[in-house]
């Protein structure tokens, strides 16, 4: 039955995330971007929302993808980078909780119940074709376990991750391996300065024949993990897009040029209308994919298309945000240029939990 109504639980989580985003994430975002790192306290406060804890719970919750998408969207409304920082742990926890063996859940999810933030990543995407090694990550049988070769590009908070879910091509298709960050022959490159999402300290990870035992192979295909990461990315892009729209709306009513508010000119007002249309569509196309993943074995098509739509539209919205603020859009005193850099960065990703 078609429905656009959030459950009570989802509404409560949404309200908490929204409050956190407004009170804590948004005010800290600029400084974190400038410093290229998050304050510890902020990460801790974000962790206190309890999202990753409940994602790691063995008890299946109702519509986990919808719940996470709603929460990530709200946090991203405050700061998209912070939402991504949480998404890594969320993605990892969901994947292991829903697909992992009992032993894997015991080994890797206990940490998520602690009060200190746990960092993890789902590294799905190999280095791009023109940068880095350009080689696909592959895993082959080696004795009783596996040997993984390859590189993952620009993994968020790579240096802080304790665990990674690494995807690699095997003879049976793409599979996921749980890899400890401290494994021998796993190298985390120095963090790179990046266009946007700078506080994430994204870094390349090189797997130079990393050996893992057979029991670190995640059962099942990676389909759901990839779909979930695209849904998370859609949610973050949606939150960012809404942030730009809501910030721009009052400005065009206040900014007086040629004797009247710029918002009274159609060239400006229609842009706001388009931003509103697209921000709403990103939100619902993303929640639709989330709901589909929650009640089906996979949501490959809708998740991909939602992410694609979100990527195109969020970039457009952030771009118009800069434009509507004129020179103020370009200077770092205002958030528009940061949102534009963040939108460009996010919209080139394939999914959230990796690149």
């Amino acid at each position: 039955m078609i429905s656009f109504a959030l459950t009570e639980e989802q509404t409560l989580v949404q309200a908490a995330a929204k409050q956190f985003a407004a009170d804590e994430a948004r005010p800290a975002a600029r400084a974190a971007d400038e410093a290229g790192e998050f304050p510890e306290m902020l990460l801790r406060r974000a962790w206190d929302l309890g999202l990753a804890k409940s994602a790691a719970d063995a008890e299946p919750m109702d519509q986990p993808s919808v719940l996470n998408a709603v929460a990530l969207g709200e946090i991203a409304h405050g700061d998209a980078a912070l939402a991504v920082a949480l998404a890594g742990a969320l993605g990892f926890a969901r994947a292991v909780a829903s697909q992992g063996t009992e032993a894997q859940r015991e080994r890797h999810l206990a940490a998520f119940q602690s009060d200190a933030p746990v960092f993890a990543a789902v590294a799905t995407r190999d280095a791009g074709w023109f940068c880095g090694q350009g080689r696909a990550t592959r895993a082959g049988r080696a004795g009783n376990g596996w040997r993984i070769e390859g590189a993952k590009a620009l993994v968020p908070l790579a240096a802080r991750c304790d665990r990674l879910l690494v995807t690699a091509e095997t003879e049976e298709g793409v599979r996921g391996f749980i890899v400890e960050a401290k494994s021998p022959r796993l190298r985390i490159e120095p963090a790179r300065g990046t266009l946007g999402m700078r506080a994430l300290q994204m870094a390349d990870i090189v797997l130079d024949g990393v050996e893992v035992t057979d029991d670190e192979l995640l059962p099942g295909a990676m389909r759901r993990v990839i779909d979930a990461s695209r849904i998370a990315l859609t949610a973050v892009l949606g939150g960012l897009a809404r942030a730009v729209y809501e910030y721009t709306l009052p400005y065009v009513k206040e900014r007086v040029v040629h004797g009247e508010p710029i918002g009274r000119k159609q060239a400006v007002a229609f842009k706001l209308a388009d931003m509103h249309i697209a921000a709403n569509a990103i939100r619902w196309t993303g929640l639709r994919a989330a709901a589909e993943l929650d009640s089906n074995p996979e949501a490959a098509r809708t998740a991909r298309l939602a992410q694609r739509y979100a990527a195109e539209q969020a970039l457009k919205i952030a771009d118009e945000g800069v434009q509507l603020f004129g020179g103020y859009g370009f200077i770092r005193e205002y958030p528009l240029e940061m949102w534009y850099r963040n939108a460009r960065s996010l919209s080139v990703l394939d999914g959230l939990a990796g690149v």
Partner: protein
Amino acid sequence: MVSFALTRADRAILKEAKAQADLASRHAREFEHDEDRMLPHAFPEAEGRPDTRAMLAHLEPETSGAKILTALLYLEDWRGGVPLREARYSLGNTALRIAGAPEQYERWRNRTIAIGLTESVGGSDPASTRTTATWDAAAGEWVIEGEKIFITYAESCDAVLVLARLVHPERRGLSAFMVEKGTPGLSVGRQFRKMGIRFEDTAPLAFSACRVPAFNHIDGDLKSMLRSFSESRPVVAAYALGVTRAALDFTWGRLAEIGIAPDYDQGPTETTAAADRLMSLEAEWEATWTVVLQAKWIEQNEGPGKIDSSMAKAMGGGLARRVTQTCIDVLGVCGLSDAYPIEKAFRDARIFDIYEGTGEVQRLIIAREILGYSPKELN
């Protein structure tokens, strides 16, 4: 709970609708050179097949709701190019239901009612209406004078709901009147020769000393009558979804012949430009579908939202233009040939950003609402 899962009844109805759309598609071109021909009540293939609207009426409690399903049924009609069974979405009927008194609605509910708003001057601005309705106190009748253009169902309707300026000792402003076919003084002009949607009946109407009884005055406020657009605009976006679905399916079908298929895991650098462009349109299609359903869901639950239908309509209008333009790019020069459905989709699709409020008018409505501007402040 957020859900996009169709119910069993939804699926049964839509399955039949899809089958009927496929049957109807063979008739889609019959009107191209025969524009005066009216759409038949039903094509022969409808024989022995259930009427999907009747199925919906029967199964409604088990569906996702009549409004959502109705929009999806129109999507299928338009995917087929012409409806197998004529199912008019007649705006006049909606307007009468919303603005008419109960006895007025009772009187005409089973008739097809065209809506006559547009005149030759400034169709986007109802305030520029020049058609008049003059009160004849002696006869207790209204006398309508004026001309309307681009009226859908002008020829095939039973009555028209016409917007006119009141000429009355105590009253002024705009109001609506029901004028039945056969009323002396009402005449239908020649069918317009259109770029597309040639199966649709579109003609001008002229009113000359056209008298209607006081009963025919739909004295609801004009705003509430114009609100009927809030119900119909997402349906127009659903038409756009239908035409573009057919265009995308055709284009993917041809690409498959040269080994290009959608792959939801490939990024832009790993695929062909053709597939990548279509993927972007698929994403926009799904987003539009979602927002059309959102508008209808809100309407089912709390009545039409202020701007939700305009949002759906604006998305549908833009989607229709982009999809059909790009499909021809991707298909290349053969896409121009009338041997294939794509050139027709291109012509048909262009109307959706024009009628029932242009894309600009939708943006005006949305912008006024979100910015809190009156029509005077933003026009």
